[in-house]
């Protein structure tokens, strides 16, 4: 986390008005991505990790929502942008890889058409023939054998793994500065997921793109990310370099989450986390994990962000 971040989310708040009342979904989320850095945002379902990603992509706005804070991409605040300005940014400077490749690709166009369209969006001067040539080249580059046949195919004619490969190629074809990846490959099988992550690592390295990986899987975090943010109930509770986080997790939630993962070493059953995720319309004051925390105490109502080691920050009264 040196120098200037390429993407910085600052004090992001998301509130949604619902029948039950106003839900405070994101409660001051801040995170930074350095150029070319692979960062994971990890948490359980409903913690707000996907909302964070969608806001960063300008894909979350509806009449009953209010978003506050800033999303800075190389010095520009993306939150205030209109749809027209977004079109110049999305797919060019920042792009996205979705969880389910089958749903993310358009079933009525061939893969070649979709790749060529993506290429021409990034570089409007490209002729159709040129774009198609570049599409074929891009596929060959990611070891797709028989790229001609694949380009002429519709997504449903191809395997999930191949579609995922195409989606990643498409996301990176315009050499974006940032890729947001929401659970890539997790809708597929473990072997395909592994291949997906390997490909993402190789391609983003090559292009120099930073990756914000959204995931619930700590194992995926460990193999893919250089740095991690752990999210719980709309707040970042811990931030550290990956190796450090797995070696010495400091927040009680991070520890509990790690203990809940079944281990390949077969040391018996994993440990559940007692209690339930709090109600977003009426969350506990201060640390939202406190009702489930074995170390909860009176001053949990206003936990500080401690930095026990450089780059390892934890939002907990235990601090160190």
């Amino acid at each position, binding site marked *: 986390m040196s120098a200037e971040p390429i993407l910085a989310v600052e004090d992001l708040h998301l509130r949604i008005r619902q029948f039950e009342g106003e839900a405070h979904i994101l409660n001051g989320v801040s995170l930074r991505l350095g150029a070319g850095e692979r960062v994971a945002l990890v948490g359980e379902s409903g913690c707000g990790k996907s909302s964070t990603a969608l806001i960063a992509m300008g894909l979350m706005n509806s009449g009953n929502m209010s978003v506050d804070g800033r999303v800075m991409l190389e010095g520009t605040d993306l939150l205030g942008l209109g749809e027209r300005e977004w079109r110049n940014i999305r797919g060019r400077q920042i792009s996205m890889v979705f969880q389910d490749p089958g749903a993310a690709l358009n079933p009525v166009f061939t893969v070649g058409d979709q790749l060529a369209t993506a290429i021409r969006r990034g570089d409007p001067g490209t002729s159709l023939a040129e774009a198609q040539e570049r599409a074929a080249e891009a596929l060959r580059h990611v070891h797709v054998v028989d790229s001609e046949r694949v380009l002429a195919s519709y997504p449903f004619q191809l395997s999930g793994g191949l579609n995922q490969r195409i989606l990643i190629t498409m996301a990176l074809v315009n050499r974006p500065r940032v890729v947001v990846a929401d659970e890539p490959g997790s809708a597929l099988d473990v072997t395909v997921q592994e291949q997906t992550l390997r490909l993402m690592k190789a391609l983003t390295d090559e292009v120099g793109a930073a990756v914000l990986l959204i995931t619930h899987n700590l194992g995926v975090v460990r193999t893919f990310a250089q740095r991690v943010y752990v999210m719980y109930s709309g707040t970042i509770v811990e931030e550290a370099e990956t190796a450090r986080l797995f070696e010495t997790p400091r927040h009680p939630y991070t520890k509990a989450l790690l203990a809940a993962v079944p*281990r390949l070493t077969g040391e018996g059953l994993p440990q559940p986390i007692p209690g339930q995720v709090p109600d977003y319309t009426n969350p506990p004051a201060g640390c939202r994990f406190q009702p489930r925390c074995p170390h909860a105490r009176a001053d949990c109502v206003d936990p500080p962000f401690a930095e026990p080691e450089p780059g390892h920050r934890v939002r907990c009264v235990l601090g160190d």
Partner: protein
Amino acid sequence: MAEPAVSAGKNPVLIRIEDLRRDFTVGSRTVSALAGVSLDIRRGQTVAVVGESGSGKTTLGNQILGIDQPTSGRILFEGREITATRDTDMRRRIQVVQQSPYTTLNPKRSLRQILDLPIAIHSNRSRRERRDRVAELLEIVGVPADFMERHPYMLSGGQRQRVALARALAPEPDVIVLDEPTSSLDVSVQARILQMLVDLQSQYQLTYLFITHDLSVVRNIADEVVVLYRGYVVERGATTELFSNPQHRYNAMLLSSIPVVSEPEEALKPSWDWDGDVLGIEPSVGAACPFLPRCPHAVALCDQGVPPLVAATPTHLHACRNPRGPGAACRE
């Protein structure tokens, strides 16, 4: 089909599956979801069936549950053949817990209605007695009994899965088919369900067929593992052996794909040549090892028909013509 017997465990065999085949016709082609599967499930044990989507693992579960008819082959329950047309008592003895907490419970029915159905079908209890039994079942799975009149949407995903478990327990079965029971849940919730499954198994002497794609879960819960690939059993045996000394190349690939969270676990994973050259072309059905198109370790023999299961040890079978070998234990 002569096949070496796996003698994992001493308990008597409860369910024996013999050369089970299930073909589906897709357009003009025939696809085998199960291409001759044999295995034993012993009383009181947990047998895990592992495979990716399209491996036939759910089809196998459906055959045992009697909601689908095999094309050929037999299923024996305590030595007697059972089919999809079975009497009420046979239905009672095999129950299911499914994958999705969002669709496993009918959204239009209350928990009491959902749990009352199996009790009403399989017992002569009066209305009042059934209500008491519903309360008891909810208590067993740790859902407050006064949730009885609630509808599923008012429950969390974990609570819904627990109600589904209560429904499976309601008719007092011998066997529960667990079809990815925790794969839609967060790990913190999954851990509690797994704990509950283990507790219930010892309390009620249950036998589990645990269908999953998650090998880390399998490692901690199963006595025996069956690895399915495209309708074929490619490896099966005692859990510890399959994990510590995988033989079939597909099993090795699966194990090496597991995202793990610690160094000791990493050390247990076999290595895999992710950039190795593979054939990529599908062989015609039955002509070769089903894994051949994805296998960087293929040898000339591999396209000479489907390899049969052979014994690596008395409790460990595999169907690989170029196995990792007895000495190829994982990196320590």
